[in-house]
């Protein structure tokens, strides 16, 4: 016990741009990607996949493959049917939702091109692939249904046994819910004496395209079956494996080691995980499966894929009076983990920051014979933000006013928070005026408008457009009671644990599971501040269910707002427990002991003891309070009452080459309110990456299938991800209004950029050419679509469903 505190004072960690703890191993190549693992006796698996989008399997001949050299075993669906479990949907959005049984390995029919049909297990990955080519499968090809609108007609069925392609219709109506008026009445009124904007907008299919292909290793040897998997959700994988295979949950350990990006794409239970698990149990040896990029593109879930019907009603002065939304959302051929829940997450966000008095949302989910869809960065909210921000621009154009003016007229004023919206959510804090003013200033809004006018007047070949997106989103998925009300199959709490080690170091166990977000750094900062210990002394552990037993993983911008709060509460429990020990050691009354900056002191004396010393005293337990267990470690589980609501104003300038339709980014400024910023370096990095994914939806990305249902954009040759050479620097600013939903005041940042940027870009391009009569261009805004729109032929031509054959042997479409 030291009477005088001679430690250097620690400066606050929260708000500091700490360099990341994670980076050392990543920049030196000392990484633990799942595919890096090699276990003694490990075998390799290759998957034989369906070349057809819809077919009945009439026969499978495994014999030739089984006889090939160094082949350990071969399996088809029938052989594994009783042990492999099924793929589950955690969110039946309606009680009568239709969902086909989804076996990890097809049993008698295939419903999308790429579906797994047989597997080969060999001593090497190369031999497994060689033998996979010897598996002889005969199919009776069935007609596929591929297009959302075609599927709704129920003429060709993705699953004939279901009798329909329609899975579920989910509805929200503000009049019925008591949160607003009758939207049909509002629209009727606007038709007679106001303005009605009706649009059909397309959210094209996207591929998450994380950089690390998915990989899974299952080791069945030992007391627990261990699965390493490139996933965002190790805890959910563990639970679901147990729930569907009958293996006791206590017999399963799931580890997400270094995971190379996810963006929702690894918020998944994958057939490959289930098959590998089954095969490893069957053979009794470690098995590895690593997908190729082509497999990843064709079979990992896709995102977006909606047709949006939007009807906005307003008074003649531009005051909005109602919003009606109908979505037709493509599930693909199965209902994935969240499935129809993904578009439903948008239900609460179409009204956005605007004071709509009446609102109705309808979402019809529909099966097609395409790759299943699920969460992709933003999950439901980008789609909603896109639609409302596009339509608000159209309203501004209708009235001939600046798009920011129509937004300001309708948005929630900063004096009106907390504000309960027409979809029933209460926004706690925000300030759209300040974010917008800051963004306009940084952007040089007025100067760019002047340049735009000058270029228009001059008839310049290159036209300038300015796009606006004043978005909000809901983060921190999700309060368990709300999830329960939505029939989601799990809770939305988060868990953390703090271990005070004898040597003064601190282990923080988190239930959220990072894959690039920098949790080890940010959570260290939170704990360092809370416990008053050096940043370097904090170790953050995660991603292994043996270490982190409880957690609901990382998605939906939840890690900081929920996981961070759990960490804070666990730290506070440590402080309270240790206080009793400190009081005992200092022979003081516990009520007189105070904690600050990592130190317990006794009021009115110079007595003090550091929390590390308390930890050591707890370890030895030689001198401990009577009846008090020698343990100051603590854990906490946090369940939020509501969401948090980041918002921001995004301004995008683009240059459109009117001769070719080529779009070039000129300038991008955003000012976001993401609540309290723990680490500005990391938060800004999240914004940059998020922005580009949203921009990329607007300009480049599209998953295209041909008429047979084969994925045409099945590699990075044809699924266009932008490079550094296609992008610009971003001006990212913050306008902070701390959230009131958690003690740190954080709001969430992971998805903000993606949600906001897509409409900012599209609005910008349409703004550049609106004077030429263009009102909409379908995403992605290919040069051809922009050019065609400029020719007066509309900007909605469908993408040609063919790729160029750059590799000899590819099918030639010429």
């Amino acid at each position: 016990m030291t009477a005088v505190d001679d430690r250097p004072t620690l400066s606050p960690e929260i708000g500091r741009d700490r360099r990341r703890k994670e980076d050392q191993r990543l920049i030196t190549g000392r990484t633990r990607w799942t595919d890096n693992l090699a276990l003694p006796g490990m075998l390799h698996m290759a998957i034989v996949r369906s070349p057809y989008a819809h077919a009945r399997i009439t026969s499978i001949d495994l014999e030739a493959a089984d006889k090939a050299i160094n082949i350990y075993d071969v399996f088809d669906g029938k052989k594994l049917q009783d042990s492999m479990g099924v793929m589950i949907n955690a969110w039946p959005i309606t009680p009568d939702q239709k969902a086909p049984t989804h076996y990890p390995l097809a049993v008698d029919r295939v419903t999308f091109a790429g579906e797994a049909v047989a597997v080969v297990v060999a001593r090497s990955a190369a031999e497994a692939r060689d033998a996979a080519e010897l598996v002889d499968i005969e199919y009776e090809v069935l007609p596929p249904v591929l297009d959302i609108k075609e599927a709704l007609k129920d003429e060709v069925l993705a699953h004939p046994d279901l009798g329909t392609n329609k899975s579920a219709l989910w509805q929200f109506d503000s009049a019925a819910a008591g949160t607003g008026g009758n939207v049909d009445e509002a629209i009727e009124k606007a038709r007679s004496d106001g303005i009605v904007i009706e649009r059909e907008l397309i959210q094209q299919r996207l591929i998450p395209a994380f950089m690390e292909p998915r990989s899974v290793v299952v080791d069945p040897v030992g007391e627990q079956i261990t699965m390493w998997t490139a996933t965002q959700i190790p805890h959910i994988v563990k639970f679901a494996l147990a729930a569907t295979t009958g293996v006791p949950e206590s017999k399963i350990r799931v580890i997400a080691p270094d995971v190379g990006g996810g963006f929702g794409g690894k918020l998944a239970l994958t057939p490959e995980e289930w098959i590998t698990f089954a095969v490893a149990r069957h053979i009794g040896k470690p098995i590895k499966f690593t997908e190729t990029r082509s497999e990843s593109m064709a079979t990992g879930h896709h995102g977006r894929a909606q047709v949006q019907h939007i009807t906005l009603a307003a008074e003649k002065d531009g005051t909005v009076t109602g919003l009606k939304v109908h979505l037709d959302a493509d599930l693909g051929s199965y209902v994935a983990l969240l499935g129809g829940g993904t578009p439903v997450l948008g239900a609460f966000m179409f009204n956005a920051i605007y004071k709509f008095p009446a609102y109705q949302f309808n979402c019809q989910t529909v099966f097609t014979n395409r790759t299943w869809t699920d969460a992709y960065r933003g999950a439901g909210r980008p789609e909603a933000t896109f639609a409302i921000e596009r339509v608000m621009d159209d309203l501004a154009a209708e009235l001939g006013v600046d798009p920011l003016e129509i937004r300001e007229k309708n948005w929630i004023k900063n004096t009106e928070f907390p504000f309960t919206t027409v979809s029933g959510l209460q926004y706690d804090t925000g300030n759209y005026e300040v974010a917008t003013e800051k963004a306009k200033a940084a952007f040089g809004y007025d100067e760019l408008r002047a340049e735009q006018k000058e270029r228009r007047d001059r008839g310049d070949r290159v036209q300038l457009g300015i796009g606006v997106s004043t978005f909000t989103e809901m983060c921190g998925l999700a309060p368990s009671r709300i999830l329960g009300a939505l029939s989601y199959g799990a809770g939305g709490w988060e868990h953390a644990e703090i271990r005070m080690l004898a040597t003064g170091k601190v282990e923080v166990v988190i239930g959220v599971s990072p894959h690039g977000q920098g949790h080890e750094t940010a959570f260290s900062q939170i704990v360092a501040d809370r416990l008053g210990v050096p940043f370097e002394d904090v170790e953050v552990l995660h991603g292994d269910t043996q270490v982190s037993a409880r957690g609901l993983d990382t998605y939906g911008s939840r890690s900081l707002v929920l996981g961070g709060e759990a960490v804070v509460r666990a730290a506070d429990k440590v402080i309270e427990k240790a206080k009793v020990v400190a009081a005992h050691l200092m022979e003081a009354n516990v009520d007189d002991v105070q904690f600050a900056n990592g130190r317990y002191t006794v009021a009115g004396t110079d007595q003090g003891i550091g929390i590390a010393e308390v930890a050591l005293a707890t370890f030895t337990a030689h001198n401990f309070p009577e009846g008090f267990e020698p343990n100051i470690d603590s854990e906490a589980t946090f369940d939020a009452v509501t969401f948090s609501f980041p918002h921001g104003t995004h301004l995008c300038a683009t240059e459109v080459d009117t001769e070719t339709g080529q779009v070039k980014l000129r300038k991008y400024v955003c000012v976001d309110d993401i609540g309290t910023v723990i680490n500005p370096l990391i938060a800004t990095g999240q914004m940059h990456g998020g922005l580009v994914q949203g921009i990329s939806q607007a300009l480049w990305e599209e998953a295209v299938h041909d008429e047979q249902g084969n994925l045409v954009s099945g590699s990075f040759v044809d699924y266009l991800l932008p490079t550094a050479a296609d992008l610009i620097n971003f001006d990212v600013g913050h306008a902070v209004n701390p959230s009131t939903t958690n003690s740190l005041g954080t709001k969430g940042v992971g998805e903000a950029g993606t949600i906001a940027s897509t409409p900012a870009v599209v609005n910008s391009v349409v703004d550049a050419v609106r004077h030429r009569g263009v009102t909409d261009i379908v995403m992605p805004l290919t040069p051809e679509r922009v050019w065609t729109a400029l020719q007066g032929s509309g900007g909605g031509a469908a993408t040609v469903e063919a790729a160029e054959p750059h590799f000899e042997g590819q099918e030639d479409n010429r």
Partner: protein
Amino acid sequence: MIPAQFDYVAPSTLEEALAALGEHGDDAKIIAGGQSLLPVLRMRLNAPELVIDLGRIDSLRGVRDDGDALVIGAMTTHSDVVTDSLVREHALLLSKAAAEVADNQIRHRGTFGGSVAHADPAGDMGSAALAMDAEFVIAGAGGTRTVPATDFFVDLFETAIGEDEILTEIRVPKKTGWGAHYEKFVRVAHQWPIVAVAATVNGSGGTISEARVALTNMGSTPLRASATESALAGASATEDGVRAAADAAAEGTSPPSDLNGSAEYRWHLATVLTRRAVLKAADGA
């Protein structure tokens, strides 16, 4: 993805390579830089029994001055073509086009000869070679023959190189002092061109005296824009001066339609890009 099994030889002389090729014929595949072949093998779109690697044959590498022509070894990498001083002086268009091939890493491995022998109509070097009136020196068991660029490109992935032959050199008539530009149109930087135009122009005082223009990805082979070339002779190097000539660039072409653009759009692009390529080339003439 892992290629299927194959045997491999890496002869150190052209004669050995030709002998191996003669022995295995259709079952063998030549690998130069391998930048187009290896993806094909990895995706198992092709599974040769034997791969013959030309990488150990030093005589196939490098650029030499041969009087009124440059001789570029088929195994010369794109990055060497970009920076070679002889190429920059006498065949600037090749240097400009090579600089636009794929990316740095690919250019470090990929070769001029491999690229044209692969004959992807979206490949950048084919149209540049065509515009330069290059000749292709092809070796076979019976000796070598020289094929002009107009006869070299036969169809999609098909050239005049016979099954038992190897492309050894590309002879390029010097166009010393000519301006050059390769105008490549892509949606993202690492793409093959949707359309590209290779142009090299001679002239002075703002007037074009001679021009060579070829199109990438406007058909199943690189295409020469002959009508444009004739119309450019004597034209002034201005937007209006070259517009009519450029508008003729797409005449008679049959470009593909795919997810990056329809044939109609490519026709339009070809005219715009031709105008831009010619003007930029003239700017350096």
